[in-house]
């Protein structure tokens, strides 16, 4: 079990690194699917099979497919890859990388202080999650429903290709 956890973790990290360094969006998304799947394994090992299933269905399935769908709509050409290469230069990533490494090392230090010791792996099955969701968290579920509704309406409103009315935040300053 432990070995599987480490392997899956390593796969997740490596594939995530690949995601953020690809020039081609489709390649990056494929690595992203790998990363999500590795995480799903991790979830399973941690005793959350329902979360693992959701991870695959929603993240690796729905969300990634949605993004790919949008990319297809945008109809990106070869120039996009060249553009990405031009954008990703060392003077762009060195600073953020250093900052992030500092932050990471601090986090690692805090975590390894041992404030959160203990063992994980006990299975918490769907039944408990369902009971909890529709018990104490019923308000959260309803709020999530509203959020999704707002998301749908917002996406529809923003996604409309209406020539005349443009969203005021995105109006171009030309002319």
């Amino acid at each position, binding site marked *: 079990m432990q070995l599987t956890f480490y392997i899956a973790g390593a796969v997740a990290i490596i594939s995530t690194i690949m995601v953020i360094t690809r020039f081609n969006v489709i390649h990056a998304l494929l690595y992203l699917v790998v990363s999500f799947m590795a995480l799903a394994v991790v979830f399973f090992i941690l005793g959350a099979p329902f979360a693992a299933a959701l991870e695959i269905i929603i993240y690796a399935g729905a969300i990634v497919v949605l993004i790919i769908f949008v990319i297809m709509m945008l109809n990106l050409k070869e120039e996009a890859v060249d553009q990405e290469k031009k954008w990703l230069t060392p003077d762009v990533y060195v600073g*953020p990388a250093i900052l*992030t490494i500092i*932050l990471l090392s601090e986090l690692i*230090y805090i975590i390894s202080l041992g404030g959160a010791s203990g063992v994980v792996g006990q299975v918490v099955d769907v039944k408990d999650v369902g009971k909890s969701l529709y018990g104490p968290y019923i308000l959260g579920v309803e709020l999530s429903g509203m959020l999704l509704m707002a998301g749908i309406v917002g996406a529809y409103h923003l996604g409309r290709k209406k020539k005349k009315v443009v969203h005021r935040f995105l109006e171009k300053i030309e002319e």
Partner: protein
Amino acid sequence: MKLWLIPALPLIGSFILIVAGSRLSKRMVAIVGSGSVGLSALITLFTGYKFISTSATSFHYQAWQWMDVAGFSPAVSFHLDALSLVFIFVITFVGFLIHVYSTEFMADDDGYARFFAYLNLFVCSMLTLVLADNFALLYLGWEGVGLCSYLLIGFWYTEEKNGYAARKAFIVTRVGDTALAIGLFMLFQNFHTLNIQQIAAQAPQQWAVGSETAMVISLLLLGGAVGKSAQLPLQTWLPDAMAGPSPVSALIHAATMVTAGVYLIARTHAIFELAPDALMIVGIIGAATLVLAGFTALTQFDLKRVLAYSTISQIGYMFLALGVSAWSAAIFHFMIHAFFKALLFLAAGAVIMALHHEHDMYKMGGLKKKLPIIYWTFLIGASSLAALPLVTGGFYSKDQILWLSLAGEHGNIWFFLFALLGAFITSIYTFRMLFLTFFGNEKTHVGHIPGNGITIPLLILAGLSTIGGFIELPHSFGHFTVFSNFLNPVLPSVSVQEGFESIEWMIQLIAAGVALSGVYVAYIFYIVKPGLSEELKTSAADLHKFWFNGWGFDSLYDKLFVKPFVFISDINKKDIVDLFYDGLVWISNFFNRIFSYTQSGILRWYIMGIVIGGILLLTLGLIKN
């Protein structure tokens, strides 16, 4: 009891004229303007009749509670006693006559409605001042008349020097007003009330005679009185105040407002009596002022400035009378002075108007035949001012002051000599003015013959200034003391020192002789040998110049206060204190510019900011543990 109507009517008139003045016809403006004061004069008459017939000591009327904060509770309430009755009588009647005069005098002026609005407001403030039953309301009236004085001196505001004169009057009197305000604060601190009657009743119990607090408060009140009444050392504003129209000079700067200081001291005589030294200072100021202003009046050539200095001098007499505790004598002189000085100013205004706004006496002359009514009324006024014996009101009032300055319980020989010298000078400059203006050859053509609106008030005032004197006759003839008996409940009578009663007739003889010899001197200099005065002027040119400039007070103040102030403000043009605020502005701008760089609109930089913040927070948390 319609007491409140007396100040309210002019106020209403003023409001009507302010709001609707430009839409009313001149006739309507005149009716509203003088009618309101006329009505309040009628009510005064009615109230006075009731007051005397019921032989009450005071009427009281409370309009409403002004404020009530932590024991400080002045009310808008009026207190009428003999003293204020004399004052409101003079204010409303002389005021009404001057209003009537103004309807003709100001007829061709564009600011007709504005003039009457100010004048009505002034009458209201002055009535509030003298009717107030507490010092807060008195101070309101006090400042109200100051404001109206400012507005009316600068009435013809298109000329710069008029605005300057108005500002000067306002600022110089402000010095005195500040002293008065501090005095009132101290009174409140000591008595926890500003009610005049209560203070007058409590003061003798709280302070011994000669008490230091009483002394300080008296001097502060005196400061206010000196500023308002143009006495030494704050007299410099009054001659310049002649920039206003003549009716204004007559009403405000001769008859009523400038005597507010006399009223204040008479009203607070209970406090002054506890501070004999302060009273002495009042007398000294009066004596010094009357002589100084007299000499200055001798050398002036502007008709109205002569009258202005003579006003200062006559108020000096009133202060002298107050200084020797001759309260009712001061008020008597105030009343007579209001009549004849208003008369003189109005007549001078008529002369000036007739001669196309010519103020220079040396360019006048020979008006005796052209303007007979003006001449005769002016003559009556001048005789009264010069205190020609027996027939003029001024003789009786001034004689009483002369007599009491020597024989009164606080009198002394020096006061008497100064007053006598002043009387001599007074009659010289008065008749110099008369001879220069009305005798000799005609030098300027008479343009405007005054009509009824001007002559009738003059005739009434001439009558008043003559018969007014007979309501108070000295011991030596008749001993007829209606006026001082009337005032006695408010103002205690003064006792005469031992051994002086027998020589009263002698003093009167001396005073009469002095006045007549003054007339004779003027006659010699300006009628018999007109060249003599020029010779004297050139032989003592420096002295003449010194007197002409009012003993150099203006240039002294200019050097002492104005120049240093202008110098300092010149240095401090950019205001050192402002540097601090400019610095604040600069710093805010600086940081604004810096922080506006962070608002690049690039999302990644914002996230970078979040990351840096996160690092800082975590680091802090780690360091703390």
